[in-house]
């Protein structure tokens, strides 16, 4: 059973590191966190964990940080927020970790914030939308490249492209799942819509466990929107894309904030059904040239992911999970200490060089400028995975520095 093996092997890795360290008579540098290893977001959580473990191995192979070997101490938060306070209290009080990072998703980042604030810990977090807007904590950092206003920056690319269409769209349909991320993404989209003066002809959400999405798509079609913005999680991303194809949605642009098509399982599942969908990606082989060194990381990642039954592409979270740890590593090395105040100050001031490019943080801990890629899928044929591993099926539309092509519109013409 591969998951059992993964548990055993990660335990073994931790043990081996610990033994190696004790042989050196030096305390290991412990980094603690909770991660979704079970529950609805476990697919992402496990992928992120693999990336972080690869980072730990890479760092230790080069002698560790400040002469100490790195050890990851983590627990399964079950994608359940109520486990988070206990986990982080244990990490800090019992395991006495030197540094903490977050789990994956707003759901599990927010409950940890009071503890971080009480103990003045520097807190690097992994893909939470807008968590710090309520807390205004000056030692919070976010590795998601959504820009200083994440909920808004998330859909920036989509609406920029949409307004670049000729003639300009007038009406928009907003739809998404009743869950934390889609709700926030839709809120961000509404900000854009208001600013751009678009008319909202449909604005509804659906329960995540909906079985049949075609009534929803038909209701959307009945309003004849120029563009359709969808924010969804993997199961409903698949359901909506299928329904859109079955009903034959006619609109100029469709997509925006679908979580799911970044992963191998949905790409192989949906295959050509994805043609024409505009979406966000954090990485794609088309832009590999802009991300040196990412190739070797991805090869390492993909080998392990396949063995552990986790997303074999690794284009979504893993590069950023790795980058998150690189930022910490560079901050520690530069300040020469583990003092939380010094680390936080350094991280606010300087720019970091990571596998995902240069990283700079804004005052609220988010990225100073958004860098989510807005892409359109095209030319997908069949349901194999190989076609996605090389460039060719994804056109990068934005940001301009990374663009490889322009959007093909209207949406339904992409089906031919």
């Amino acid at each position: 059973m591969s998951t059992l093996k993964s548990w055993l092997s990660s335990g073994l890795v931790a043990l081996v590191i610990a033994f190696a360290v004790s042989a050196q008579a030096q305390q290991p540098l412990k980094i603690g966190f909770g991660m979704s290893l079970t529950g609805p977001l476990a697919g992402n959580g496990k992928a992120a964990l693999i990336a972080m473990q690869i980072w730990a191995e890479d760092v230790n192979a080069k002698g560790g940080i400040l002469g100490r070997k790195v050890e990851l101490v983590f627990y399964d938060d079950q994608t359940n927020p109520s486990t988070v306070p206990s986990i982080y209290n244990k990490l800090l009080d019992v395991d006495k970790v030197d540094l903490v990072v977050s789990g994956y998703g707003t759901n599990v980042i927010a409950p940890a914030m009071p503890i971080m604030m009480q103990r003045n810990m520097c807190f690097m977090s992994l893909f939470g939308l807008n968590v710090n807007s309520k807390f205004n904590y000056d030692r919070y950092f976010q590795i998601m490249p959504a820009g200083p206003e994440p909920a808004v920056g998330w859909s920036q690319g989509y609406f920029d492209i949409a307004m670049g269409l000729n003639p300009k769209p007038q009406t928009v349909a907003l739809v998404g799942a009743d869950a934390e991320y889609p709700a926030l993404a839709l809120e961000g989209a509404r900000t854009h819509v208001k600013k751009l003066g678009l008319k909202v002809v449909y604005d509804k959400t659906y329960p995540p466990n909906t079985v049949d999405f075609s009534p929803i798509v038909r209701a959307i079609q009945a309003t004849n929107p120029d563009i359709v913005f969808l924010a969804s999680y993997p199961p409903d991303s698949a359901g909506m894309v299928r329904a859109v194809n079955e009903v034959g949605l006619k609109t100029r642009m469709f997509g925006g904030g679908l979580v799911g098509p970044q992963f191998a399982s949905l790409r192989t599942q949906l295959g050509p059904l994805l043609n024409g969908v505009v979406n966000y990606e954090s990485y794609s082989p088309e832009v590999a040239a802009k991300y040196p060194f990412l190739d070797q990381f991805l090869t390492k990642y993909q080998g392990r992911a396949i063995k552990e039954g986790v997303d074999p592409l690794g284009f979504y979270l893993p590069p950023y999970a790795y980058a998150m740890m690189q930022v910490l590593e560079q901050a520690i090395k530069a300040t020469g200490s583990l003092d939380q105040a010094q680390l936080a100050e350094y991280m606010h001031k300087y720019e970091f060089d990571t596998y995902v490019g240069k990283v700079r943080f804004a005052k609220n801990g988010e990225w100073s400028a958004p860098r989510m890629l807005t892409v359109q899928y095209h030319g997908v044929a069949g349901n194999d995975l190989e076609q996605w591993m090389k460039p060719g099926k994804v056109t990068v539309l934005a940001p301009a520095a990374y663009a490889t092509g322009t959007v093909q519109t209207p949406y339904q013409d992409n089906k031919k």
Partner: protein
Amino acid sequence: MRNRTFAVIAFAIALVLIALTRVIANDYFFSAVYTVLQFIVLATAWNILGGYTGYVNFGSAAFFAVGAYTTVFLNKSLHLPLPVLIVAGTIVAGLLGLGVGYLTLRMRGVFFAISTLALAVVLFTFVVNWDYVGGARGAYIIQPREAPLGFSRYGHLLYATMVLMAAFAIVVARAIERSVIGRGLAAIRDDEVAAECAGVPTLRLKLFSATVSGALMGMAGTTLPLYLSYVEPTAAFNLSYAVNSIAMPLIGGMMSWLGPLIGAVLLGTVQQVVQVTISSEWNLFIVGVLLVAFVTLAPNGIMGWVEAWRRSRPHPR
């Protein structure tokens, strides 16, 4: 033992537990124990309707979440202090229990169970669509940086509150169990038709039981938003609350107030330990196995085991 004496003892123990905040520096202890205490309240509350009266409630999460969201709503609109929030949440949940009971307790037990399931889904959908309390986006409640009453951390205050709530729930449950009401509930549990014929006011008693049970479950939920700083519907309505509030009395024994306490402490501690050691899907597996094992081997729970063991010992002549 008279109720008053018991209450005094219970609160004395509670005060000792609260005093631990001065002694133990380890915050993890308090967050872990908070969760176990929360389950003590839930299990005890569930047992009032489930064990004493014989009506299985699948929707514990609904009452729990109602308590949590009342806190969110009142905190956002009126910024009320904690004790008021707790009382308010308890009352609202109690009213919900009364309402649901009135609609459904006139049917056979199994229909009540299914209604509670339906109730949980309906309430969940309402909360998801209610923008003021955050809907699916979730709601943030920022813990005050300073803790009142001399606690060094706000988390300690929440822990203390939960200790008091647990003591309160147990005192109430025991009082009900030993009163005339408790006897009436037991009669309903054993044979409702016979009880009705014997003149027991079954409907009124059942409504009482449902109201108290719902109120206490809501009470357990009132501090959740402050404990997590962030609530969203899927977390508040999580299946684990429903499952645990059934499993714990089952494992501990459903006949008296001691059973849910034992079950909650046992199962709750096991879950907390597993969470930070084995830490993966095994947690759910263990709950499942424990459930099956206890239910097949120890049908009356741990209390039942103890009873049977006591009875099997030879009596002194």
